[in-house]
């Protein structure tokens, strides 16, 4: 049995499990911290910086999805500074590729769009990149549009850690990074893909999706945590 850890989040006393992250402790106690690349059921890597929090006694901000709780920790989840950081994180994601909500399959059920609304991102302060990646429609059931990808790598982690085939991975670096299938094959020609659909179910935006269906009907954000929970019961 792990030892319980006591900390405060926004002045509220919270009991967490040892080894748990701040984000997990907050969510389990019904406290909200926005997050984007975090996906319950798979590992976290703190990439998007939307879930940043402040810790009393430190001038830095911390990604709550990868920062473990410690006894006596005082966490602040909402402040002017944090809102500014989060806003920039979302703005930069929106600027990195041509996100055009009105004609996107994810419109209305997109996590990036919801965050932008929540954080009041109604315009961008930096120039947009109008990337022109080829859309991959080779798979019979799924489509991949890299122009809408925010590089959260949820799909990669799900494919590796839940489905166990590691079809998906990243190539190149920085803003040029691209999610690829096998050794950059077209999806329809991937030899390892099992067509399970977990990647598209976990995609927070409209980059990976089921062809011919509005996203509102097929997005299953909790699919992965559900699968992991059922597995742990066995």
């Amino acid at each position, binding site marked *: 049995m792990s030892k319980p850890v006591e900390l405060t989040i926004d002045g509220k006393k919270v009991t967490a499990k040892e080894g748990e992250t701040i984000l997990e402790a907050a969510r389990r106690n019904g406290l909200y911290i926005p997050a984007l690349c975090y996906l319950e059921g798979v590992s976290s890597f703190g990439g998007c910086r939307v879930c940043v929090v402040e810790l009393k006694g430190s001038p830095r901000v911390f990604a709550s999805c990868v920062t473990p709780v410690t006894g006596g920790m005082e966490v602040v989840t909402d402040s002017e500074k944090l809102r500014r950081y989060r806003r920039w994180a979302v703005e930069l994601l929106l600027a990195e590729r041509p996100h055009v909500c*009105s*004609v996107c*399959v994810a*419109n209305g059920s997109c996590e990036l769009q919801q965050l932008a609304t929540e954080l009041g991102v109604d315009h961008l302060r930096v120039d947009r990149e109008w990337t*022109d990646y*080829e*859309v*991959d*429609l*080779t798979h*019979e059931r799924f*489509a991949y*549009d890299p122009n809408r990808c925010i590089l959260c790598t949820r799909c990669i982690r799900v494919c590796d850690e839940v489905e166990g085939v590691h079809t998906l991975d990243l190539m190149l670096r920085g803003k040029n990074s691209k999610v690829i299938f096998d050794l950059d094959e077209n999806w329809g020609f991937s030899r390892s893909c099992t067509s399970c659909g977990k990647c598209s179910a976990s995609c927070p935006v409209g980059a990976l999706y089921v*062809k*011919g269906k*509005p996203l509102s009907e097929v997005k299953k954000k909790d699919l992965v945590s559900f699968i992991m929970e059922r597995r742990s019961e066995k």
Partner: protein
Amino acid sequence: MVREIVVNPVTRIEGHAKITIHLNDDGSVREARFHVTDFRGFEKFCEGRPFYEMPGITSRICGICPVSHLLASAKACDNLVAVETPRTAVLLRRLMHMGQIIQSHALSFFYLSSPDFLLGMDSDPSKRNILGLAEKYPEIAKQGVWLRKFGQRIIESLAGRRIHSSDWILPGGVKTPLSKEKADAILSETPKAIEIALNAISIFTKTLESLNKDVENFGDFPTYYMGLVTQDGGLEHYDGRIRIMSPDGKIVADQLDPSKYFEYIGEAVEDWSYMKFPYYKPAGYPGGVYRVGPLARLNVSSRCGTRLADDLHKDFKKLGGNGVVQNTFMYHYARLIEIVHCVEKAEEILRDPEVLDVNVQAKASLNRREGIGVIEAPRGTLIHHYKVDEQGRISWVNLIIATVNNNLAFNKAVTQVAKKYVNGRSLSEGMLNRVEAVVRALDPCLSCATHAIGEMPLRVLLYDSENRLIGELVRG
């Protein structure tokens, strides 16, 4: 010395345009040109997108009649997946189209054009708009607003929203069926819609009498006419085949396959406008000038196919020799008759026992590499033509927009009206408003025509014979 007058921007139309009027030494008009000043590039940036995104993308060409693009695009996509769309889905799409035509025609007549003839061509330009109309004739303005709302509500009942309901239309059908409550709600309002449309017709015909002189030279010139017709030559908006009528009222081509439009329609380009100039190929360019839209549809069709509209159609045909009405002003009349027809047609569709069926989409993936969708948009024949690669990504797009079909006619019409009314020696606002009014009668949608962004005001520029700008009137 020759001068040029420029009307820029043209007001109370959909989109940006300017008119230039070229004058002779004595100040009389030599020629007038209608210029479309925006460029948008939809045909180019759609390349590479999955074909099923096309209804959503192309409907953004226009916020006035997104439904027209949705339907033309959906038909092109139906073509690509090559399945038979369930009859109920076709009925629902048709119903949406009727709502669309009603609201668009109501907008054109009541909001944009009626201020000209109800308040007067020479009335105070600051009041010559829908607000001035509401002040002087509140009942008519209210009716116009109601009728437009009625059309928009039909669209909303089907797709959940009035504008850009793009995710409701899918290749092979539509997303959701129609509920009985919503069908009944529309049916309960159709009698009022017909009453308003008939009332507008009586207002219009009275106006015709008082505007007699003005109307005579209001873009009254012979052209070819093109429109879709049913198998027996009746009025058709959603499906059907192309009929072309010559200026003297003869049917020169009938039951043409709309997907072979390129065999009989050529597209010319002029360096002074971003709008292409289509023409009827057998008659050459620019002799093959043709018109589309409400006037053309009523000219080419032998009947409407609904009770009240059929009677009105017969009266309408009497207005021209050989059953061809050439006067551009009569576009307004044709538009009102079409409203009556569309309301009647909507009733007919809603009473069809299959309209509430729940089988509304035939599902299939890509089966063809080329797809063409043709419909009659409120402003005329609209063609969407796509080619895709082996994955279903768009590789080539051609859009022939209703307004573009009328491009040559616009230039003829503004020249005729300018010749009649404009005198370069003493310019007046009312004079230029008549030039604008003929443009309004054709009801251009320039945001569509240039596939342009933003509002649509108009500018008139006046040039002398050495092409020096000597005057300018700007509004909007």
